[in-house]
């Protein structure tokens, strides 16, 4: 019940702030669109791929979007939380009768929804822009479907197929495939996985306010992982593969890319990355919550809860 009350309060606040500062919001979105467009173009020309690799471009754009999503969720628990401590808002939030965990759950849910809306607009723009670019050039690969399941098609580049490896791969054509059910489930799991990790970082920030820079490095690393994540991960040595799976955004990014770009649909639920995503949720959520609660108590003992 408390969660929904906080959720309502946060939604209302976000809407008011967005409406009041609509010019800043629109400008930020426009700047982000232009930057993304330029960024992807530079990336493609750097690789010498040109417009023919619309799929790669959208794959990278999607990776970046998921990375930014992870970046912002973890950021809410690190720099966001430190900022709240600085402004005194954290003390107020702590004194609401729902507890910090409920408050932050609701806040991150609102931030996630806003982030999804913003980045969906952005992704649609990128997808449309690069699909149009790719129209004139011969597509290097074809996405084949058999009874709705994408089949393996040998190709080159970052989304190249590898025979015998887990998962069914096919090269994307740069178009976003709408799979609302699968995407919703994946986003929900990604949200829990990310907030679990975020709670752990947030707990540390409650006690050690100066770890903000470490959190920034962590967030950047997660963004890079999401940007590059592909099921080529299964080719890595065991140690690296294990580390990659432990990062909460890796398998989430792989699953989302497979569903959105390679039209995996509901078949994603039998993909190994989905299993790892479930494992991430099962591990990170309790670890995050336990860590946050313990750190909250420690911060109260040290008197650092609302102080910066």
């Amino acid at each position, binding site marked *: 019940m408390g969660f929904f*009350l906080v959720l309502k309060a946060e939604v*209302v606040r976000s809407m008011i702030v967005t409406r009041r500062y609509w010019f800043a919001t629109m400008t930020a979105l426009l700047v982000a669109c232009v930057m993304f467009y330029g960024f992807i173009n530079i990336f493609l020309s750097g690789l010498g791929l040109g417009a023919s690799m619309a799929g790669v471009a959208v794959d990278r754009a999607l990776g970046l979007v998921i990375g930014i999503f992870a970046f912002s969720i973890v950021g809410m628990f690190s720099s966001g939380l430190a900022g709240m401590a600085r402004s*005194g808002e954290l003390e107020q939030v702590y004194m*609401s*009768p729902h507890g910090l965990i409920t408050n932050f759950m609701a806040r991150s849910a609102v931030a996630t929804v806003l982030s999804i809306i913003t980045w969906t607009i952005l992704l649609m723009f990128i997808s449309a822009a690069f699909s149009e670019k790719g129209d004139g050039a011969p597509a290097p690969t074809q996405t084949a479907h058999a009874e709705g399941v994408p089949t393996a098609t040998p190709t080159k580049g970052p989304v190249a197929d590898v025979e015998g490896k887990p998962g069914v791969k096919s090269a994307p054509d740069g178009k976003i495939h709408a799979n609302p059910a699968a995407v919703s489930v994946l986003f929900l799991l990604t949200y829990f996985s990310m907030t679990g990790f975020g709670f752990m970082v947030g707990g540390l920030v409650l006690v050690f306010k100066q770890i903000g820079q470490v959190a920034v490095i962590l967030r950047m690393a997660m963004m890079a992982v999401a940007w590059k994540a592909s099921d080529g991960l299964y080719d890595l040595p065991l140690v690296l593969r294990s580390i990659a799976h432990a990062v909460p955004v890796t398998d989430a990014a792989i699953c989302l890319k497979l569903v959105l770009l390679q039209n995996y649909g509901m078949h994603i639920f039998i993909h190994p990355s989905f299993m790892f995503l479930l494992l991430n949720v099962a591990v990170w959520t309790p670890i995050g919550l336990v860590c946050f609660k313990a750190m909250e*108590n420690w911060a109260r*003992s*040290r*008197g650092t*809860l609302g102080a910066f």
Partner: protein
Amino acid sequence: MSAAAAVELCDVDKIFHTHHFFKKHEETGKRRVYYRKTVHAVDHVSLEIRPGEILGLLGRNGAGKTTTVKMISGLVKPNSGTVLVDGMDVEKKRLKVLRKIGVVLEGTRTCIWPLTPLENLSYFGNLRDVKGSMLKERSQELLDFIGLKDKMNVEVRKLSRGQKQRLAICIALITDPPVLLLDEPTTGLDVQSSRAIKDKLIEMTRQRGKCVLVTTHDMNTAQEVCDRIAIVHDGKLATCKSTRDLLGLFSDHTYHLHVDRAPDLAPIRALPGVIASDTLEDEGTGPRVSVRFEIDDRARSAALYAVMDRLQRDGVVLRSITHAQQNLEDVFLRITEKSLNIGGKS
């Protein structure tokens, strides 16, 4: 727990440890790789606040006032002792206790600046389970009560510091809590804003039966609004008395002797029962000898006769004798000075 107390602190103790790396040691001045500093912020304090009363908590910077407020609101965990609000232990039933208290912490950090006062009340009301028509009614009523109705649709960032502070009090009152904790509510405010807040505090306590704890450095505020005053010094509770008792604490043993000329103070100071004496030059009325005597009635009486005898022998004409009228600042300084001396001796 006394049945009447709305808030009770029972032998509450709080020690903070700060850790320093590669810093100069504060006492030795030598750079250390690591050292730990211990601060006894609240030292076994016991006090209670009754419903319908305003308790002032006075103390110098770092005396432990804010830590006490934060312990009552659950923001800081005491090392030992119990904090009870409406009979509930803050540590055990924190979330229930939070429904009973409203807190305004130091400064104007409580409100969200991009929102208007009405939106702020709506936001914090939603956060604290106040919903629907009750939230609307209470918001309007509070803004009217605190004098911000004409500013209810102006963004908080455009309000003055006093208005922000008044809004912070409204936010603390949105759940209509029986207990209100105010940490330095008038600091940095102009006379009018300070006056407005003081008036509202008194009105709130008298008319609505709230129990209020105010920490402040402003002795005038404390003297004007508080029913009782607790003075903390170095984390210890130096005294907790009604404002009237506190003001009378020293006035009955300090006398002003108006004389025709300044006498030699050395023999007066040497008299038994005299603690201190000083000569002040009052414009128009001539010199005034201020003498502080021992608290004991007999010793004070004997010492006063001895002082008058001494003045007569020196040929000084005694024009009048008056009791010194102490204000809270004098009392506060004397008490903290006394605590300092006790601390120094121990």
